[in-house]
């Protein structure tokens, strides 16, 4: 006689601790579970709701400056250190973990407009309206612990130049840094004078950024509403593109060296491919006032913008609308934003003299996650992503509470764009076919490309 029995060894099925999990065996035959889609939909809905509940993006503010924060710089070699410069010429080094000032770099007479650190994190370069470029020695982490009493440092070098500076950026893995001002100057650490100067037109250059992937290419934006590309290998500017409004800042995608995004005065951000400057690859809309600063996440998948409308927004690198908006009652005009080096935090500096630390994902759970927790988070995220198109889930995921002025401004903007669109449509309808060409927004704001 054949008798079937279940044989389970006690060793395998006995839990060592009461917290341990019972082993569960499942039959994955789909005919046994016909409701899986419904189950997962409900889970997605719940995950979306929970995300809303747990969305606490603001971690803390860093107080210390006595004037508006005008510039910030990440330390590429150190995750938790951040430099910030203010309008009164004060430069501070912050420890993000403790949210304390580590040390100060006194010296600038006017506003600090540009800050950057070398790739090894040893040298800080600052420049400002006092027409000086200052190089600072960044203290070592261990060193700062010792002499906390005397946390002022003296500059390595001070180079006085002809005109006020508006921005500075350091080359990736190189010795060069570029300053923006009346012209673009390329400096070496060890030279008191720029090794190269570019001038294309007489207008002030207001921001400069090196391409992190391609260290010899840099882009600047000017007060003549232009965006200019330079190539250091040929020591010549390469291409200039003029838009309808000024570009306040720009940022290269660190994972896609051909792409950069420009933060424009007209509330939008424009992603460009360097090779095709006659049209933007993507227009990122949502801000209701000029975008002041922009920084890419090191993953290259999203970027953060700070705006004059007192909000910080996070965009997908290819998304037309923002994924997230951060605001607090006390945060004023945002002048600078940075993504942290690990892509999980955002730092904003604003007019209210404070730096603010945010989570890049509002509902992310901080701290060490157990593998099961992590798996569950991943699962919920995946389910939410899968059902994000369904109306209920979509509504919950998209919903944000906005400050009243921003909400009103946004609706006003919508009305205006709608009116403009309607007007264009009518004009087109009442004119000879083909006489009025409909330019897409990606091209509309571009005036011309200069060789």
């Amino acid at each position, binding site marked *: 006689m054949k008798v079937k029995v279940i044989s389970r060894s006690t060793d395998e099925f006995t839990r060592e601790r009461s917290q341990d999990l019972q082993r569960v065996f499942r039959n994955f035959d789909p005919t046994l579970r016909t409701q*899986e889609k419904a189950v997962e939909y409900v889970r997605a809905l719940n995950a979306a709701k929970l995300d809303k509940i747990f969305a606490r993006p603001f971690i803390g503010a860093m107080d210390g400056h006595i004037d508006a924060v005008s510039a910030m710089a990440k330390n590429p070699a150190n995750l938790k250190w951040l430099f910030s410069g203010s309008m009164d010429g004060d430069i501070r080094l912050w420890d993000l973990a403790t949210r304390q000032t580590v040390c100060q770099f006194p010296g600038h007479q006017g506003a600090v407009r540009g800050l950057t650190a070398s790739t090894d994190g040893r040298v800080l370069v600052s420049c400002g309206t006092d027409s000086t470029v200052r190089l600072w020695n960044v203290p070592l982490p261990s060193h700062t612990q010792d002499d906390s009493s005397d946390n002022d440092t003296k500059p390595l070098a001070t180079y006085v130049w002809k005109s006020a500076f508006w921005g500075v950026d350091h080359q990736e893995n190189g010795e060069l840094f570029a300053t923006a001002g009346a012209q673009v100057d390329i400096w070496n650490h060890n030279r008191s004078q720029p090794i190269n100067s570019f001038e294309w037109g007489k207008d002030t250059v207001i921001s400069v950024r090196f391409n992190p992937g391609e260290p010899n290419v840099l882009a600047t934006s000017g007060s003549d509403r232009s965006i200019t590309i330079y190539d250091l290998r040929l020591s010549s500017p390469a291409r200039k593109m003029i838009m309808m409004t000024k570009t306040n800042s720009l940022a290269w995608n660190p994972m896609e060296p051909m792409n950069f995004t420009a933060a424009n005065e007209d509330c939008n951000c424009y992603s460009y491919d360097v090779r095709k400057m006659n049209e933007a690859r993507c227009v990122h809309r949502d801000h209701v006032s000029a975008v002041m600063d922009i920084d890419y996440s090191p993953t290259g998948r999203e970027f953060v913008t700070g705006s004059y409308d007192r909000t910080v927004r996070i965009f997908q690198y290819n998304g037309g609308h923002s994924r997230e908006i951060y605001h607090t009652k006390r945060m004023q005009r945002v002048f600078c934003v940075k993504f942290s080096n690990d892509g999980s935090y955002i730092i904003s500096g604003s007019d209210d003299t404070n730096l603010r630390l945010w989570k890049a994902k509002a509902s992310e759970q901080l701290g060490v996650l157990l593998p099961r927790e992590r798996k569950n988070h991943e699962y919920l995220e995946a389910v939410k992503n899968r059902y994000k198109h369904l109306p209920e889930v979509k509504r919950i995921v998209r919903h944000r509470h906005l400050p009243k002025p921003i909400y009103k401004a946004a609706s006003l903007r919508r009305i205006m764009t709608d009116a403009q669109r309607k007007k264009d449509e009518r004009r087109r309808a009442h004119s000879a076919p083909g006489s009025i060409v409909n330019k897409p927004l990606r091209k509309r704001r571009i005036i011309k490309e200069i060789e």
Partner: protein
Amino acid sequence: MAEKGKKEKSRGEITQRRRRDGGEVRGRKRKSLSSSGKRKEEKKRRSGPRLPNALKRELERLNPTVDGEASDGDDEEIDSDAAVGNDVYEYEEGVAEEESTRNKRYDPVENYEFELPEDFEDWKVPSDGEEDDDENEDPGRHGRLLEDITGLSADAFGGKKKKDLIISEAYPECEFNPTGDILDGNGRISIHDLLDPLHGKSGFSKLRKDLHRMGKKTVPTLAPVARTDQERIERKAAYEQSKKDITKWEPLVKRNREAPTLFFDEDKELGYSTIGAIASEFTPRTDFEKKMASLVNQSEVVDAHKRDGARLLELNEVSIEDVKERQERLAKMRDLLFRHEMKAKRVKKIKSKTYHRLLKKDKSKAAEASIRMDPEAAKEHAMKIEFKRAEERMTLKHKNSSKWAKRILKRGLDAQDDSTKAAFSEQLSQHAALTRKINSIKESSSSDDSSDGDDSDDMSAGSDQEAAEKLIKKAKEKTLQILEGDDELPTSGVLALPFMVRGLKKRKEAADEEAKLALEEYESSLKQMGDTSKSRSSDKDAKGAPGGKMVFGAPEKVVNRTTKKEKVNNYYGDSDSESDADANADDNTLNDHTGKSLKEMDIDPSLLREEFGFSHDSVFKSFGDAEDPEPKTAYEVAYLSSDSWKKVRKSSDAVKGSEADLNVRKPGIVAQTENDPESEQDDDEDSGTDSEVEMVDGILSSGPKSSYELPSQAELIQRAFAGDDVEEDFIKQKEAVLDEENPEPEKPVLLPGWGQWTGVQKRRGLPSWMLKEHEAAKQKRDESLKKRKDAHLNNVIISEKLGKKAEKLHTKTLPYPYTSKEVFEQSIRMPIGPEFNPVTAIGALNRPEVVKKAGVIIKPIEYEDVSVHERGEGGRKGSAPKQGKVNGKNRSRK
């Protein structure tokens, strides 16, 4: 050719033709004619090369060619130069051309002026010796002309020339020394004249080529471009360059974008790659390791290793004592092993059962001791027992299912010899024991407790008649309880089935009957109790608490069982009670005490009672007492084991046929099988047969049998649902649903009053368009009804109303990246949860787009060559395209 023509034709014609021929020829002629002043200067220069020219001319004369014919013509110089051939002639032309261009640059207008006098001359002398005339006249005219132009005296131009002529005439005129006229007229020196002597020397060809080039090419250098334009060009070049450079990233970026997941985890240091590297890093930590290291790293050993290793043998020497000791030890061990083997063999050969039994006992004792001492061993032992039991339950090895047992049964147990019977019974008892253990475990909670209590009662009750009295009293109480107590019938499970309930009822009645009988007996026995002798009661008492046996249920039962066993043993003719000698020791003593043959005892309880008198009356009472409560216990354990079922039946049997056949009443298991194998088979079946037996026996009232026949299923259903017509209802319901979902069109009605007065309405009826519309609507409805999914399903309603609740489970438009509905639906078809997928698949299904670790700095992208070949490989891998590498080797993931 042209030269020939020139000779014959007039000057005017020549010039005309020359014009036609092109500037080159004309220019040459012009020069030859006009710039006589210059020519004179040339003549002065010519003093050097005169000799070779003359020589050439001589050579020409000696080997006249086609061209040479015209050697004395006006273009003599050309001819002379063309001595080598046509090529040279053309070459000559080249030089002339250069000259002409230069001339042109100077002043083209002047040239025409110069030509006019030529025409004039043509008119004068169109003869052969034109040149000479020209030459003769020329100085005067030319000098005048120059005078006119420059305002200088003609002497300034011509004076020198004449001087030269005079001086050069040092020798008589001959071939080798041509006259000045000849020289003046034709012998212009070209650059070729200068070049010729260099012919064949190194660098000549290069020089010639340069000359040629210079003659051909006269591209002017352009003026520098404006600075703005220049910068623009530079910028354009720079842009093109950087564009090209940046395009190299494209495949990498594309790969990253297409990867389902990007990994930005920490770069894990894999550490050492080779075993050697790992070994070299080894540092001893524990004492043992240190000792080993010190031995291994001894300088001597290391040295020996480094050389040829021969010295290792020397270092490896062992003392003789050590070797000897080791050998001795080994020998001893081997000896011991051998002895042990021999002993085992010897022991195995022993055939004595007693010996083996004793051995077994010893072993079991030792095992018990070890169990007591060692929890591990205890656990093992428990496992073993458990395993045996499980095995027994699975295989039913000891339940007459083996071939051997079947054969014996087939032949009849009577035919077997004693030992076989014993083995048979032993096997059965083993089976019982193995399966019964479960009962004991399961019952332990209820019956064991009670038995314990009873036991203690018994023990404390002293060893006298009181005990017996008490026992009987208790038995009485219990029987009363059973009589009074209404056993609730089970309401669920197998026992709730009607026939089971019936059976149970009947059995209960039987038990009640029995109990009544027993009660009477108790009464009588209690009366007799006064005279009971103490000793016998003490015996009984001793029997009441049997030691060293597993306890099953109530103590009464134990008593019963022991007696049964006793009887079984005796049935086999008192041969030997080895099998359960120790177990039944008490019973044996009892038997001895009674000193009666058990066959007698088997015959009749009433006889027995008489025989034993008072003393054994009580004992027998106790038998009855033991049996009496059994039906109750049977109820309790009925579902737990077939064994207890047996008991139930046994008890009932006992009542039924106690008088008729005692073998049935006191059935050892073997006895029963022996008597009627059918009943044994019955054991395995359910109690239905049991009840039937009872009914057949007719001892108990089975009740009057009615003539009622069971109605058929269909009838039953019909009767049950007599009141409601479900089908009709359903049809109505369906119609209602159809009407609701596809409403019938309204019947056309006319508004009252329209055309009433005139009677038009009545006459014409409804207007035709209304009727048409109505018809159309009807048709439409019919069609839509036909199209319904449940049109052909009579028993089904499929609602086609779109539910509001379902609405929120659909998207209004197709979401962005998807191009078709099917693709989108497919993308969300398969569930991704852990309940629906194996653990191995979940990770890949739920992996987010970007995997990063908090606190790990992500460096910008680094260039890495993603060639087509490599990508093809990646595609071939197929199974693991989830790995999106970001930064080449840094971001690759194992």
